[in-house]
């Protein structure tokens, strides 16, 4: 195992650059003709894609149903504020719990499956959740989505931060959540647990012979991955002050996979780059031409042809060696 991505992760410079860019983003975002909400969206979706990649890139298992947990996080947060308590942190906690509990149950059912079958069964459960939110009009608002609520300013006791109206404050709030989640993921990947996941990815049979309980590790990896996906979902609902069943649709899961593959799934920061390209490219091209789909599609094709390991795969190889 000579090319462990975790080793590359220790190349601090790259991480430092990423953090500087993220921290200063609201300052230069407007100057380059963009807007803060777009940055927030990139960070939120990057969290979802990185969460997916915990399972995909570092455990070697493809889930095509992560939108279900993303969406459960979104609905958990939205419904908490709308029906229960007007509190942003509590909304995130409830959203996270909703997604994680669902993942624990589903995960236990499916860990025996591998490859395409695992991917397809995650789609199956994801779609079932999707149709439940779609059809359960009275609670979820059905296809119209859940509106008529908004994120609540943070009350810190001595002061309050208005993340409701101040887009920059909300961006930094999201970035803080992102940093916590990403920090935990990086820590886990460096821990013996993370090394074991890599061992499973590289050669499951050998890992099994070494006495590693594969199913339990896979289950844990799936649950952790879904936990962060549901945090991302909760933040996404808070960003839009709105959520709808599309958050759970398989197409959304597909987008997360695309982001991870686009950026480079063997690299820790790859999905972040992928999400940034995916979101900014669509946003930019679609305001300039109604034929934006051709340009975005062509871009994907070109990435596959010229960046065999995703965008970051090649950049990093060039700069780091």
């Amino acid at each position, binding site marked *: 195992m000579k090319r462990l991505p975790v080793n590359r992760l220790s190349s601090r410079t790259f991480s430092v650059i990423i953090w500087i860019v993220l921290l200063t983003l609201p300052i230069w975002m407007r100057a380059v003709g*963009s807007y803060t909400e777009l940055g927030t969206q990139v960070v939120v979706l990057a969290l979802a894609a990185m969460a997916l990649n915990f399972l995909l890139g570092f455990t070697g298992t493809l889930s095509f149903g992560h939108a279900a947990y993303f969406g459960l996080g979104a609905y958990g947060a939205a419904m908490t504020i709308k029906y229960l308590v007007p509190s942003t942190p509590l909304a995130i906690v409830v959203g996270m719990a909703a997604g994680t509990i669902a993942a624990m149950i589903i995960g236990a059912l499916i860990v025996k499956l591998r490859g395409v079958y695992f991917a397809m069964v995650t789609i199956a459960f994801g779609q079932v959740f999707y149709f439940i939110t779609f059809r359960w009009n009275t609670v979820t608002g059905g296809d119209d989505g859940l509106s008529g609520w908004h994120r609540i300013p943070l009350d810190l006791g001595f002061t309050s931060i208005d993340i409701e109206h101040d887009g920059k404050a909300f961006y930094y709030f999201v970035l803080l959540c992102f940093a916590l989640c990403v920090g935990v993921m990086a820590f886990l990947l460096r821990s013996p647990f993370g090394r074991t996941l890599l061992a499973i990815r590289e050669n499951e049979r050998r890992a099994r012979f070494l006495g590693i309980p594969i199913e339990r590790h896979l289950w844990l990896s799936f649950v952790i991955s879904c936990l962060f996906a549901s945090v991302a979902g909760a933040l996404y609902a808070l960003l839009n002050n709105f959520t709808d069943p599309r958050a759970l649709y398989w197409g959304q899961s597909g987008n997360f996979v695309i982001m991870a593959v686009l950026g480079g799934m063997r690299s820790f920061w790859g999905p972040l780059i992928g999400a940034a390209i995916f979101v900014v490219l669509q946003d930019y*091209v679609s305001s300039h031409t109604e034929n934006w789909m051709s340009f975005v599609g062509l871009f994907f094709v070109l990435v596959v042809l010229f960046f065999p390991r995703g965008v970051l795969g090649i950049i990093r190889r060039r700069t780091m060696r």
Partner: protein
Amino acid sequence: MDREPPQRSRRRTVLKAGLAVGAAQLAGPFIISARGEEPVKIGLDNPLTGTYAAVGKNELIGCQYAVEQINAKGGILGRHVELLVEDSTSGDSSTAVQKARKLIDRDKVNFLVGNVNSALAVAMAGVAYEKGVFMMDPGGHTDAITGTGCHWNVFRICNTTQTEANAVAGTLVKDYGKKFYYITPDYAFGHTLEAGMIKAVAALGGTRVGGALTPLGTTDFSSYLIAAEAAKPDVIIFLVQGDDQVNALKQAVQFGLEKRVHLAGAQGELEPLEGLPPEARIGTWVFEWYWNQPGVPHVAEFVAAIKKKTGRVPTARTWFGFAGTWSCALAANGAKSLEAVKMAKFLQGYHLPPEVALMPDGAYFRAGQNQLIGDLYVGNAQAHGSAPDDLFKVTKVVKGTDVAGTLEETGCKMTWPA
């Protein structure tokens, strides 16, 4: 992707060329003085891809034509008008919300326009209300927008679903029977339209014998049609729209259902009829605007201009976009201000000029509801008409005031900012 997509430059250049010509023709002193100023921005957040791409595109054409006219006539408060277009997609509310925020926060639009999809229109209205921006909904029909969920700053061109239902119910019950089966799209628009139909039909003694809710984007309607036939209704009401309507009608006609049951709908449009083979162009519908209105002033010019621009006749959607955009300009010029409150106040009870209304009895924004009330056209789809595009035979023009219900019935309670 370091180069700008060519499509963009072409579109923008055409638009700019149009502006230049318009300005040159008028060349009034106040255009020249306006040159240095920031243009007035209208942000259109409407579907250009997906199921509603066709109707969304027609609304866009109407908006573009209106902007050309407005600029040729001196713009808004003497300033140029610029139309910013964003694709909201057909069903993804998050995208629509995101684009609305982008138009408001980054582009600082003075007017937000959209959306064909009712669910997206409701979501956008939420953003517009939060930001206090003047919003015009050209073609999203769900009642809440100018009913229980109405806002002082949100106006609408197309009718409420209840109005459409009231307009067609009489003809259906009188001519075709009392037992109704509903095929309804499963989102805001469909739910309110079905509720409206049930209410309107019940008032005349008709009943609902069954119904099916179909998700947006359903392609195969055969099992729903089997269920519908089994309920033995007199009339099957198709409330689905766009491509879904094409699929449903095409299959119903292949099954020969039109020979045993009357097929009808509440909201009919020219776009789906054009997508159907001739034998499937059937049923009783309400149109909200139709191009073939002999004798109504200014309609012929409008039709000719759109035909010259696109090669096709305008549809109700084209008119929605046209009238919606013009209403924005008229509000600002009338209020002599771009402040949302002043413009909204000005439009209360405002009658559109005939060259914008393009209807025999005119059209006005009802005060306290912000809903445009005009004429509705009840009639039948026809395989062939006087012209290749004449696919609808108007049998009755219904006055909006007679079928729109009272202001109290709409449930709209508006609170104005202090």
